[in-house]
């Protein structure tokens, strides 16, 4: 407890069980009365604890904490750990473990946690004795939050939880084998600046690294000085405000049309804190081959992993961006930037307008997102589940405030949305949290409605119900001869479910009722479930089919 306190932990998402009972017994005192220094949020399933910790971390910038028991308790968090690994989210999962004497005996609720979590965590460690606690906990938080952040797993043997020792606080701020912040190489910065200064058609690709490095204003100064248009990855959406004139939209398979095509036309590509995921690059053999590539990243192993770079600047972008800004010339690329407009117009006419302002037919996801974006507060936080809801939501929400998006980008974890929204709410109790989900993903962690009920978490849940696993259905229609194999779903009565949990509920079927319903949701205190009856077979567009060249992006099916 004191080790967690020393790390500044305020909120713990957890679920008790046999092997973690000593910790929970101590927690009893630390969550009430004079000694109170933590809030403990009892989730309804350990996967929920991990995702809530992720949502908390993503919004607060601090380390999210999940506390669970051994065996099934912690295997239930593995999805969240893998998710945090792929999306560079700092969480610490503390799990009970059988006493060391019982290790390897197939004891009740024993699992080789370090063994199973090692490939999907930044660091995984077994605490075998009480005297290791201070060292391991401080090291865990240091590793989780520094450098490229990620999940850390502590496997806490039960005997170590009960042994009594003299407490000696420890603070970890150095590990000799771990270099979280590589030293900025000014030669590389110089080379990058030269490339940028000679560029006629520069294009920046902004990723979550900018948010993780808290370099949002450094980014804007850099872009503005040389007048460089910038696309953002899905996780980087709130690194640059949507309404900034240099923002040219979202990258990727379902991103914006112009920026995808322009990746194949730019002469210098400047990737900042992003990892060239296959969802961004499409076919690597043809991706941006004409461009000189500058890659700014804190993680050396990302350099040349997917896209070969001309110049790599390996450092924290909080440091590298200002250094680069210093050396680049003030410039204007008005003509180049204007050339995006024509394509934007095409996308607006063919895709965006019909999606957000349809005239007839059932409700579409795009218009629901657009309505919530218009009516919610400027600093509202977007949380999404995974699938069509995520793609529509990320495309049509607005981002005016840093750290405004929680979504599972790398692992694509259905069920992420609801618990992550709970975590986001605890990280920013004064900001609206709007959580978009489909009927598939909502049901994957639907038990967390219990947490929402108990804590009266003011999550605004927008359930976009099309009675389909919509994204898979879209692929089946497009690439699998319309054979809709197990994507149609029979749904429960969500109104009855909301009622069961005592959560305010409203259904919208008709377009004319949408505005009032969204308003009601946003003005109602506490949690709210808004169920929208959505066009069943809608498609997310535009789209670059998987593995295709990014400039083969389709505006229509």
């Amino acid at each position: 407890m004191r080790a967690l306190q020393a790390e500044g932990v305020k909120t713990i998402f957890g679920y008790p069980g046999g092997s973690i009972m000593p910790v929970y017994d101590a927690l009893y005192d630390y969550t009430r009365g004079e000694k109170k220094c933590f809030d403990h949020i009892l989730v309804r399933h350990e996967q929920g604890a991990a995702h809530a910790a992720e949502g908390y971390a993503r919004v607060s910038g601090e380390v999210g904490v999940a506390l669970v028991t051994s065996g099934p308790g912690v295997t239930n968090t593995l999805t969240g750990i893998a998710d945090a690994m792929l999306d560079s989210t700092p969480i610490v999962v503390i799990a009970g473990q059988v006493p060391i004497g019982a290790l390897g005996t197939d004891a009740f609720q024993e699992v080789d946690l370090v063994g199973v979590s090692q490939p999907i965590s930044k660091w995984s460690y077994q605490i075998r004795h009480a005297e290791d606690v201070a060292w391991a906990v401080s090291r865990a938080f240091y590793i989780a939050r520094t450098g490229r952040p990620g999940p850390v797993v502590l496997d806490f043997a039960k005997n170590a939880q009960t042994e009594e020792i003299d407490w000696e606080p420890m603070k970890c701020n150095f590990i000799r084998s771990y270099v979280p912040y590589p030293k900025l190489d000014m030669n590389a910065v110089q080379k990058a600046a030269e490339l940028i200064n000679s560029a006629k058609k520069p294009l920046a690709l902004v990723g979550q690294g900018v948010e993780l490095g808290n370099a949002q204003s450094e980014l804007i100064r850099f872009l503005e000085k040389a007048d460089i248009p910038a696309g953002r990855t899905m996780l980087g959406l709130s690194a640059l405000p949507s309404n900034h004139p240099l923002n040219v939209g979202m990258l990727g398979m379902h991103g914006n049309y112009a920026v995808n095509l322009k990746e194949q036309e730019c002469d210098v590509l400047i990737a900042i804190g992003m990892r060239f995921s296959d969802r961004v690059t499409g076919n690597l053999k043809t991706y941006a081959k004409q461009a000189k590539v500058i890659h700014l990243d804190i993680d050396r192993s990302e350099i040349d992993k997917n896209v070969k770079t001309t110049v790599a600047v390996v450092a924290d972008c909080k440091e590298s961006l200002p250094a680069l800004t210093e050396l680049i010339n003030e410039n204007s690329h008005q003509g180049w930037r204007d050339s995006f407009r024509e394509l934007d117009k095409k996308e607006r006419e063919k895709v965006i307008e019909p999606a957000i302002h349809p005239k007839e037919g059932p409700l579409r996801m795009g218009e629901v997102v657009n309505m919530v974006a218009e009516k919610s507060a400027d600093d509202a936080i977007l949380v999404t589940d995974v699938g069509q809801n995520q793609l529509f939501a990320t495309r049509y929400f607005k981002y005016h405030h840093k750290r405004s998006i929680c979504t599972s980008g790398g692992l694509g974890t259905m069920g992420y949305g609801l618990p992550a929204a709970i975590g986001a709410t605890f990280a920013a109790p004064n900001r609206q949290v709007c959580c978009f989900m489909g009927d598939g993903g909502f049901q994957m962690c639907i038990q967390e409605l219990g947490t929402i009920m108990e804590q009266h978490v003011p999550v605004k849940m927008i359930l976009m119900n099309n009675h389909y696993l919509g994204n898979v259905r879209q692929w089946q229609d497009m690439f699998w001869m319309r054979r809709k194999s197990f994507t149609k779903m029979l749904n429960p009565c969500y109104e009855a479910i909301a009622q069961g949990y005592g959560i305010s509920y409203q259904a919208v079927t008709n377009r004319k009722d949408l505005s009032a319903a969204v308003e009601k949701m946003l003005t109602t205190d506490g949690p709210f479930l808004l169920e929208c009856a959505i066009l069943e077979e809608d498609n997310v567009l535009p789209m670059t089919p998987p593995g295709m060249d990014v400039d083969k992006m389709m505006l229509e099916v």
Partner: protein
Amino acid sequence: MENRKNLYTLLVYSENVAGILNQITAVFTRRQVNIESLNVSASSIPGVHKYTITAWSDEDQILKITRQIEKKIDVVKANYFTDEQLFIRESGLYKLSTDKVLENPEISRTIRRFDAHIIEVNPTYTIVMKHGITEDIISLFRALDTFGCVLQYTRSGRIAVTRGMQEQVSEFLEERENG
């Protein structure tokens, strides 16, 4: 374009904590690259372990593997080398039938020709040992095998030191401790 495959040697230095080997081999497994040989030992730096790993790969892939390994928290340094950059040794042990060795003087001549040593003889078997590079050790096996005298044969993992002057990690650690 087909990338050319080479035999690369990785030298990995890590802290002395449990579970590192698992993490290192997992990086290979994930990419379906077979480890040809593996040797783990202490290094010249107290508390630092040295892994010598060989694998067939192309340069692009071995670079990615090396960086993924170096990224592990308790790995101090990882680098890859081609054979020209290293001083390399392996050992071979050959258990021969003593009867066959006595029957055919050509066997003893072969052992001497390969600069191998007989390290134990008893009425049933003879143990021969050879140090050298991979090819020589395999060649000796092939030569002995033609006489039908080999009862058992095993080859060690590769050990290697760089042709540079210093253990490459000492500078890094010095910089980390003092910087």
